[in-house]
């Protein structure tokens, strides 16, 4: 029972981390209509950016994190302006393959610059709190807190700001996107800045929880996609709920299949959702016209 709770807590925290790229994926998928396979490597980029800033002597870790968010935002924005924007009229597979290529480029440059050694952030070592066997790491709490804060911030923006509301509307209803024709530049720019920041933050948090290595983000890509599909494409709340469920499912599967099969769990969940309820929890299935 204690073990169950520990897994549950860990799953919840992992789920919150997954929620960040999942949110980014669901928005891009809903608006730009393609799965952004470079999201994982953008996460890795975020982690390494924070790492780099720390090594460069930035005073507080939180500054490094903010710096990494900005870096991630800019990277994604650049990718949109240089590549994805030009592919907006091309078939979906073009953007998809371009995203794969961009992911490869990000990962390889990181590997060339930073090497393949495992790194960790220099954070104060804190002992886990123990409540009768239920272990909670203060770092994990901080991670969860930051993730939650970021998610709340983004949701406020999506709900309250006019651009945010427009984005949500388009993400939810693709026909609306087609009707509105040329999507305003600014809106797209904001979307991609947001997307990059979300992925970068996910990467940093993941790096805090585990280790920083070039494959960090790629390993999160499938769980994030599964979360997006589980929650329903274009549904921000769905992405978060889906991500938390994914995180918990992955952790709870450990006693059954061991700790290394997380990606397989994500895959199975993805398949099940697509077979049984393709629209996901909150979404609707699109009909062919």
């Amino acid at each position, binding site marked *: 029972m204690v073990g169950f709770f520990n897994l549950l807590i860990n799953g919840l925290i992992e789920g919150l981390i997954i929620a960040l790229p999942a949110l980014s994926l669901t928005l891009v998928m809903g608006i730009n209509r393609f799965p952004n396979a470079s999201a994982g490597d953008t996460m890795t980029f975020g982690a390494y950016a924070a790492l780099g800033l720390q090594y460069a002597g930035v005073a507080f870790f939180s500054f490094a994190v903010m710096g990494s968010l900005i870096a991630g935002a800019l990277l994604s924005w650049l990718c949109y302006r240089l590549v994805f924007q030009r592919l907006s009229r091309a078939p979906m597979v073009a953007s998809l393959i371009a995203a794969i290529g961009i992911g490869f480029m990000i990962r390889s440059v990181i590997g060339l610059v930073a090497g393949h050694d495992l790194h960790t952030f220099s954070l104060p070592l804190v002992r886990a709190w123990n409540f009768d066997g239920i272990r909670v790491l203060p770092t994990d709490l901080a991670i969860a807190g930051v993730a939650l804060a970021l998610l709340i911030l983004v949701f406020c923006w999506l709900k309250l700001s006019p651009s945010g509301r427009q984005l949500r509307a388009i993400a939810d209803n693709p026909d609306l996107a087609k009707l509105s024709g040329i999507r305003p530049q600014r809106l797209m720019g904001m979307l991609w800045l947001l997307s990059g920041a979300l992925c970068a933050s996910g990467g940093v948090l993941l790096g805090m929880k585990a280790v920083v290595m070039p494959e960090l983000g790629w390993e999160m890509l499938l769980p994030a996609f599964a979360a997006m599909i589980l929650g329903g494409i274009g549904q921000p709340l769905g992405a978060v709920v889906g991500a938390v469920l994914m995180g918990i499912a992955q952790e709870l599967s450990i006693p059954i299949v061991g700790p290394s099969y997380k990606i397989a769990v994500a895959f199975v969940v993805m398949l099940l959702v697509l077979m049984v309820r393709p629209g996901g929890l909150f979404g*609707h299935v699109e*009909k*062919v*016209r």
Partner: protein
Amino acid sequence: MSLLEVQHACVDFGAFRAVSDVSLSLAEGELLGIAGTNGAGKSTLFAAIAGQQATSTGRIEFGGADVTRKPVHQRARFGLARTFQTPREFANLSVLENLLAAAPNGRHESLLASWVGRRASRHQELELVRQADEILAFVKLMPVRDQSAGGLSGGQKKLLELARVLMLSPKLIMLDEPFAGVNPVLIGEIIEVLRKLHGRGIALIVVEHHLQALKSFVQRLIVMDQGRILADGNPHLVLDDPRVQAAYMGGVV
């Protein structure tokens, strides 16, 4: 016995009821037009009959068989064919190949037949080509027979859709806005083809916005509004119906 029976069909999108308790009966060889303003539900009804869209309640029978839960391709096999509003030609195939691809499944189309028994397949192909050429002549698309379908004009693509569907020897052809985006000359040609098909005993359902074109050649007109059937009968009487006039709110009737 009627060819098509729709009984109390309803289609819901969440809380929104797009088609509300629609019943209609179509006899063999009948020529029916369905009109209505935007959002009247005619496209949804069309999709429900064609099998693209599931009904929430209600029953659809075709040729005596219950097709309510049957998928699109099975309804087509029964003889219920349809064309698309935005032409869905096989762009990289030639016009002729488009028709050949439509020919009902023969053993010549199996994977094994690619390698084994090729002579027999070629025989069957020749027969199909003959059929296709006949149809192409009928719709006057012979001049572009070997051209890539993607390069045809909008009107030609609509004729191609019709030609393709004829390869199925259908009992009913449903046309989804056949006159949309087509120049007036070709509208005339399409109407002529439709009249000839009617002459051959094929039932037709034409869903259209373009009332002028519609009322000139259909025998029976249904007008829908807000998911329901407003009026059903002789086109001129239907269009004179005050409820129909009100629904169109002074638009061109």
